[in-house]
């Protein structure tokens, strides 16, 4: 099978899964108790807003039902939902009174930035420690690192995040272990949020100095803040580098909380994978040739040991997005996870549908990319 055939086949396989996810979210949203028409009008449901042609009064509640077309049969509603989805109309949030697409567009970059950075930290860390652990098999380092790997997988993310806050973000007088490194209050890392609140000085509003319509990834956007906006900031903040550093510092603790479990599991996978490879014949050949142990492990063994690790990437992205629900709640990031929690708490099922769909799209696409990468690295996969 050629590579492009493989890609096309995988893309076609995505379609039934996506339809399945759509059916699924639709079903769950319709099982969730609560009448969206009643939620929208709140305590003004009885107010007469209009009259029919026969002179019958229409209450706000009935008007909402008509507007949301809730009297149609479920099959019709589902068909309309699918066609609307295809046209890019994901409905309007009952809670935020904004289109769901906008809500998701604001929230998704936050989660993605955090998850990707977390994996970006976790991967090198897990892989390097896994290599060392495998090379020093059954020595002290191996035992200790394996124990910590399991321990980090076992930690509840939200608790670990709060512990990080307690020790690294509260300062020594509150029981923390470090004091501010620069400028900020509290400990050496900011306690929550995406920015230092003093950055919003002197204009109210949150991230006003970031370019409107930017990517939403503030690590990127901070470099595109124009000079006249920087000039309005206090002089000690007024540089792109400091904005970037501020964003990075705010991301540090959430990413640590999110990435630590991935790093732990990666260490274990990498160790097992490398140990398997180290018993292969070609490694023995390489050793027999008189290559240095470093070269044998890094060049000959690791290249093959890393191949299975690629597949884990797909699952860790899903895990990171799931874990982001907890991390964002602790660190007050308004990402997808927080939106999901709020919408479920307030039974805003339009947003629940949107968020579930978009997370599954992200997950499926990243898995697709991982699979294609895998097929490129290891052509045997395509042959099946």
């Amino acid at each position: 099978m050629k590579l492009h055939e493989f890609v096309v086949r995988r893309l076609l396989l995505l379609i039934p899964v996506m339809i399945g996810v759509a059916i699924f979210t639709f079903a769950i949203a319709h099982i969730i108790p609560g009448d969206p028409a009643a939620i929208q009008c709140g305590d003004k449901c009885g107010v007469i807003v209009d009259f029919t042609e026969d002179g019958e009064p229409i209450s706000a509640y009935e008007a909402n039902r008509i507007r949301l077309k809730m009297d149609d049969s479920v099959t019709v509603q589902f068909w309309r939902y699918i066609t609307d989805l295809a046209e890019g109309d994901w409905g309007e949030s009952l809670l935020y009174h904004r289109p769901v697409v906008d809500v998701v567009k604001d929230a998704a970059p936050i989660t993605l930035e955090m998850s990707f950075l977390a994996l970006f930290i976790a991967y090198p860390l897990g892989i390097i420690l896994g290599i060392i652990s495998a090379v020093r098999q059954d020595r002290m380092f191996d035992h200790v690192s394996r124990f910590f790997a399991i321990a980090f997988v076992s930690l509840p993310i939200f608790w670990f995040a709060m512990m990080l806050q307690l020790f690294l973000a509260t300062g020594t007088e509150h029981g923390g272990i470090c004091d501010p490194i620069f400028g900020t209050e509290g400990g050496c890392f900011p306690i929550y949020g995406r920015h230092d609140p003093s950055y919003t000085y002197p204009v109210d509003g949150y991230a006003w100095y970031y370019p409107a319509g930017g990517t939403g990834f503030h690590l990127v956007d901070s470099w595109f803040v124009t000079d006249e906006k920087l000039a309005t900031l206090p002089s000690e903040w007024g540089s792109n580098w400091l904005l970037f550093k501020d964003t990075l510092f705010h991301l540090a603790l959430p990413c640590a909380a999110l990435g630590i479990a991935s790093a732990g599991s990666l260490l274990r996978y990498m160790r097992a994978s490398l140990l398997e490879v180290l018993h292969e014949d070609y490694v023995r050949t390489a050793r027999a040739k008189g290559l240095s142990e470093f070269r044998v492990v890094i060049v000959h063994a690791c290249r093959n040991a890393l191949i299975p690790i690629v597949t884990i990437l797909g699952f860790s992205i899903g895990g990171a997005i799931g874990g982001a629900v907890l991390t964002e709640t602790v660190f007050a990031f308004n990402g997808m996870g927080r939106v999901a929690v709020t919408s479920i708490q307030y039974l805003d099922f339009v947003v629940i549908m949107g968020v579930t769909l978009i997370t599954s799209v992200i997950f499926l696409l990243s898995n697709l990319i991982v699979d294609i990468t895998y097929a490129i690295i290891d052509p045997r996969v395509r042959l099946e």
Partner: protein
Amino acid sequence: MRDWDGGKGNRDESLRRLREALSQSKSDLSRSWKIYRRSLLAMLGLFMVISVSLVAIFAEDIAVEHPYRNLQDTEDKWSIDYEPRRADPFSEECDWHEQKITTNPNSPLFSEIVVAESDDKVGDDNRYYRDTLSVIQFIKLEDSLGYDLNLSLLSIDPSNSSLLVLSPELYGNTSLYAGVWVTYEFDNEEMHHWWMPDGYDVCIFGTNDQGHDLFSKVVYGSRVSLKIGITVATLTVIIGTIVGSISGYFGGRVDEVIMRICDIFFAIPGLILAMAFVAAMNQITSLTIPLWLGILFPIFVLAAFSNTYLNSTVPDDDQISEQAMSLIMRYRGVLLALVGFIFFVGWMPGASWPDFFGISESRSWRAFAALGILTFLGAIILADRRFFLNTSFEGGLGRIKDSFDWTNPWRYLTFRTLAVFVSLALLFSFSGSEGEEIVLIKDFDRLWKVQAALIFTGWPGYARLIRGQVLYVKEMTFVEAARSVGARPGRIMFRHILPNAWAPLLVAFTLDIGGTILSASGLSFLGLGADAYTAEWGLMISESRRYFLLSPHLMLYPGLAIAVTVLGFNLLGDGIRDVVDPKNRR
């Protein structure tokens, strides 16, 4: 005339074989234990799991305070209003008690000698009672407006340290309002435990803002967490094994559809799916099934079992059943259309469901019934010829007559009949007297919802795992041999394939208990799990977020408890993996 001695040789032979198998499995176990013992981490894990389980079992003896327990509820609610005050771990304030004393001589409650009593407590029989406290010294005396009074206005009775004597000035002074608040240190003897050093008592972990003893709460929390973990892991294993083995054994279209359904589950992050599912189950207060289903299901089970039994006793070349089957197959399209018609009519607002099945009108029930019909539909489409072959009921009466062997009733005492009767008994013991419905779970409270959500999101992982195992074992020679002597799929599955595929399942089961505890506490942390003031570790952390800076111990101990429990199960699972899967052991 039967020859009763004829069976003796057989019995001896089977006994010998049984003994052999037992000793074999015994030596296998001891060998496994030897391998397991080698790993320090695995032993640590076993120790942790055993100690957490012991704490959970003996929670009533270890804990100092006890929750208010509604016997019909599945959870322990902590609604004792002990003293609404937070105390740090190991602080002496835990021996302090605040009590109101009426000082108005006209009040019916007034008395010059007041007994020092604890707050209301709830006993095992759900009745309120109060303990008598023996006072050591007074800490503070306040009038009802909160102003300090002189401590000498009150004194302890020299003969009985639990009696407080009011001085005449205290109630003679009319400028005072109706009562005073006294804070005193009492002898906390009854709360000391033999295994705790002197002075460490109810406050070993401190108390939370409601005055609940954190230590007792953490101890009771182990029950909730272990219960959730083990229930969910067991049920997901059962569901996943059934689905996965069907998928792996039959292959083809069945496999394709089941795996696509699993893909859908994998595509949505588990926690978000579980959250949505918990929210969806918000209004269900008790889990019931309609009576017709409750009656039909055991009958189907019975029919299926007796059918396989009949098939094994009677030669299987019946022309009638072949004809009937081909008839069904010929009108398969009509059958499909009929079921599809029912399905779509069900969704239409005009047609009412109660007319069809006598079930309630709610949206969730429509969805469940529709799901059931969908499953049926899918089964008909997918199961194909095989489905009809395995459930042909033709010529049943005659066969039943032939197959009854009254001379030896013991032959009916097989595992299958037992399973059928147990399932019947369970169904009817759970059934309440609520009209046309059978109650499966009476109080479908939030913990049950969490468990249902985690089962719902968890089974696809096991289905995939078991499918892989079955695909692997299926190709082995002994399965081929079993098939060639004419064993049926069910027998091959349960007797030949699954016993050889259980090893990774055991590992996944152990690891999954830990994972489930993590997810359940995460859900509780988000406010979607246990009810307020339940002794659930995730909820305790969530409730302590408000006192994050002031009393970090409130979140420290529950979090440590989660970490230790999950770590224990993970280490145990790793150790078991080393034993059962020699490839990873290096």
